[in-house]
């Protein structure tokens, strides 16, 4: 399959489904779903295909599309998550207004992301990047109100990043007079410190804003929590990772591994930023009460893990970072879709202080959140564990124990906020107002099952994906790593999930045998719980508010989002200065005439003074 055919199919599908929405809304849903399925099939069939096509010129610049192993893995993840989000949208967006715009923009974002990963030169990448950013803005502010503010924050920062990226592209062009990747990689290794540093900084700003690295993360929490849930899952799962793709392209394809390793100072700054990105959002997420905001802050933290892997520049760390990208897409999209299902069934409630006990009413959604949370934490036998293990090992063996410490303590913070999420939503007492909540509809259950499968499968048999990623890192210039179906088999320390799986299975069998020695339990209702002999107060016998209050004071110093305050204050300052300047326009014609007279008088005076 040629990459341009894939992108063209995506675009056609988007336009067709939008137009058919004017005829019949069901037809639009069906076309959107079919497009996504066809894309997934087309991409899976082009495994191992490697090519490069020129698709024309734009103002004299050649436009090239290419496909290689890196593009393929990104494209597969993008289309798979989009498919799940589209199926989920059937019931979630049913009956809402602006559905035509929603589906069109969703599929347009999909097209743009596929275009980004299939682009073979910087101009194509920039065109598709801008399409993606603007379509995302329209989708984030779909619901208006607070979503509009979130969208404004997003688009301002995104445009700033795009301008930085444009500056970097122009600089590269001025150095080498070409923008095509394959030609640029020939120049890799011939850079001077000054120019390479400029390129790195400009592109780091551009891709870092999209990737939500500290200090560019401020747009992410409001945007992800205010967007509609299926789009939140795409945002967190794959849109952020376009920044990852950009990092990989810049660091390993354009600049080259050897040159990048010479920049010890810049890499050190990147390590520190990655460590901060892992720790600070984790602690901020602990204190959140809104389920989607908690997940949004969690996305920032996990993006820090991926960035740490990619900038650490060893084969195992890049492998771990890319694998964590695939895993994060799976479990974060799963979590956002499950929270969206709960939000749908409880009429828009996502406040963790009010929910509880939903395990009895929505068991499949609970299982989905449980699997997603286990993947997020990195419990062995789920996919997050393998990618995090690879990251830790590369950090420890690579002589960076402080960065490894940041990553490890990030995982413990993740345990805390993940348990808060699952406990406040599903465990505890079921409030009276949610006693009749129904299970999630079928079109919401299918994508949750589809996304839960890779979380478990890649946890037990990570070799499936690791083999694909191994060819990616070989193409980036690293040595190949021995991969088996069950894990990694290198000489400095291996991991085989089969032993862990067998050990846990053995433990479960022993526990079941022991339990069978006892008597059969009596099933009781939730009102029959211990309350020191008193009656259970309905709706009040629940512990959700301020779940981690004892340590809130201790971690409060780590949670001050100074950068967000800085941005908000700067924006407020600029607004003040501009409104002061605006006072020049009084709207009164008399003052304007006075301005003209004063200016003419000034000109006359200057002329007279000059002639002396």
């Amino acid at each position, binding site marked *: 399959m040629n990459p341009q055919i894939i992108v063209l199919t995506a675009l056609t599908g988007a336009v067709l489904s939008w137009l058919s929405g004017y005829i019949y809304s069901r037809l639009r849903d069906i076309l959107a779903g079919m497009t996504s399925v066809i894309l997934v099939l087309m991409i899976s069939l082009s495994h191992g295909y490697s090519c490069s096509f020129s698709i024309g010129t734009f103002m004299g610049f050649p436009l090239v599309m290419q496909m290689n192993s890196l593009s393929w893995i990104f494209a597969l993840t993008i289309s798979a998550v989009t498919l799940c989000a589209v199926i989920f949208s059937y019931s979630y967006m049913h009956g809402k207004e602006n559905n035509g715009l929603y589906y069109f923009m969703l599929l347009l974002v999909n097209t743009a992301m596929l275009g980004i990963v299939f682009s073979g030169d910087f101009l194509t990448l920039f065109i598709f990047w801008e399409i993606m950013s603007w379509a995302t803005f329209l989708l984030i502010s779909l619901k208006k109100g607070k979503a509009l503010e979130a969208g404004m924050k997003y688009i301002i920062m995104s445009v700033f990043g795009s301008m930085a990226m444009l500056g970097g592209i122009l600089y590269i062009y001025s150095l080498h007079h070409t923008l095509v990747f394959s030609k640029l990689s020939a120049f890799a290794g011939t850079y001077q410190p000054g120019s390479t540093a400029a390129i790195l900084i400009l592109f780091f700003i551009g891709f870092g804003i999209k990737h939500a690295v500290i200090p560019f993360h401020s747009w992410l929490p409001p945007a992800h929590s205010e967007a509609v849930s299926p789009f939140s899952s795409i945002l967190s799962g794959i849109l952020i990772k376009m920044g990852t793709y950009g990092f990989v392209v810049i660091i390993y394809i354009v600049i080259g591994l050897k040159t990048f390793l010479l920049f010890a100072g810049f890499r050190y700054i990147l390590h520190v930023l990655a460590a901060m990105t892992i720790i600070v959002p984790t602690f901020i997420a602990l204190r959140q009460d809104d389920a989607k905001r908690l997940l949004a802050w969690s996305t920032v933290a996990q993006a820090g893990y991926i960035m740490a892997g990619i900038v650490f520049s060893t084969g195992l760390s890049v492998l771990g970072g890319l694998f964590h990208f695939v895993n994060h897409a799976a479990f974060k999209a799963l979590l956002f879709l499950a929270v969206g299902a709960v939000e749908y069934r409880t009429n828009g409630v996502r406040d963790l202080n009010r929910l509880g*006990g939903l395990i*009895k009413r929505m068991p499949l959604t609970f299982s989905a959140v*449980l699997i997603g949370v*286990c993947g997020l*934490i*990195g419990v*062995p036998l789920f996919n997050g564990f393998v990618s995090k*293990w690879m990251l830790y*090992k590369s950090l*420890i*063996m690579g002589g960076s*124990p*402080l960065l490894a*410490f940041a990553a*490890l*303590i990030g995982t*413990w*913070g993740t*345990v*805390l906020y993940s*348990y*808060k999420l*699952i*406990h406040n939503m599903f*465990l*505890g*007492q*079921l409030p009276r107002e949610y006693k009749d909540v129904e299970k999630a509809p079928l079109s919401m259950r299918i994508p949750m099952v589809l996304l839960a499968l890779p979380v478990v499968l890649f946890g037990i048999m990570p070799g499936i994906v690791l083999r694909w990623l191994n060819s990616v890192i070989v193409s980036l210039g690293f040595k190949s790593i021995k991969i088996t179906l069950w*894990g990694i088999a290198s000489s400095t*320390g*291996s*991991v*085989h999930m089969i*032993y*862990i799986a067998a*050990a*846990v299975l*053995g*433990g479960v069998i*022993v*526990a079941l045998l*022991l*339990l069978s*020695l*006892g*008597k*059969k*339990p*009596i*099933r*009781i209702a939730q009102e029959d*719980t*211990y309350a020191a002999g008193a009656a259970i107060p309905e709706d009040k*016998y*629940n*512990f959700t508010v301020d*779940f981690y209050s004892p*340590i809130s*004071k*201790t971690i409060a110093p780590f949670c001050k989002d100074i950068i967000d305050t800085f941005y908000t204050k700067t924006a407020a300052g600029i607004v003040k200065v501009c409104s002061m300047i605006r006072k020049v326009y009084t709207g009164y014609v008399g003052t304007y005439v006075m301005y003209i007279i004063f200016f003419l008088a000034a000109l006359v005076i200057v002329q007279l003074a000059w002639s002396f």
Partner: protein
Amino acid sequence: MELLNMHPLIVIVLTPIAALLAGLFFMGVTRKFTARIHWRYGPPITQPLIDIMRMFSQRPVSHGTMFHGGVILSLAGALAVLLFIPFGNIPPLSGSGGLLVILYLLLVAPLGLALSSGEGANPNASIGISRKLMLSLGYEVPLLLILLTLMTRYGTLSIYDIVHAQQETQWALVTVPLFISGIAYILILPAVLGIRPFEVVQAAQEISSGPLVEYSGPYLGLVHLEHGLTLVINIALFVNLFMGGAQNILLFFVKMIIILLAGLSINAVFPRLRTDQAVSWLWRWPALLALTGLITVMIWR
């Protein structure tokens, strides 16, 4: 004691059984030793076994599938970790990714307990679990620094290599840069084991035994077994990492008993710290010591 000649499958089957019995023995020693410190007689050492047998003969109540499954998962997680820790000269499951796998498998048992007690719909359980997670965050900061110090010093992820390196030279506890981390580990050992002054999780008087509040019958029995196993696992981890493991399982057992009695001497006379006091203390002195140890090791190379 020619255990090395046994078939690995027999070792895998015998290790959990031996660990369960050792866990019961440790719990019995706990009660007897604490009683003797209190100038009374205390129950016989087999009392935990009697308690568990009594619990298994009672008819429990269940709050649902997650309630049932979580308890099974918690014991399964504890049993799974056992196979990855060397006990004396019994080799752990190889090809297992070392200390990181142990660290992550240790997560499974409390997670199972947390999910299961949450379905009991009792706020005492929720408070207990939130305290447990916060206390874990508290002692994980110094513990991770200590483990990273060891991994950097010995240049390996595998606990088996660390034990062998110590058996060839000397205990890490008395080595020059590592004794700082050793002292830090001794300071956080009560928190890891869940004994006073860090017994805030199962504060029987404050929150009605926290996560255990709705467990009866066999579920309670399994949770007590898991408590015993946790004692064995954490003490074994300390003995392996800082006291050089042992050449045979009997010497290993003796070392574990010494550490247990040392911890119990503190447990018997200290009150309980509040969660915020415990966490701020753990993030101050032990973390500072562990960080000093890590930086010393990083500079030493």
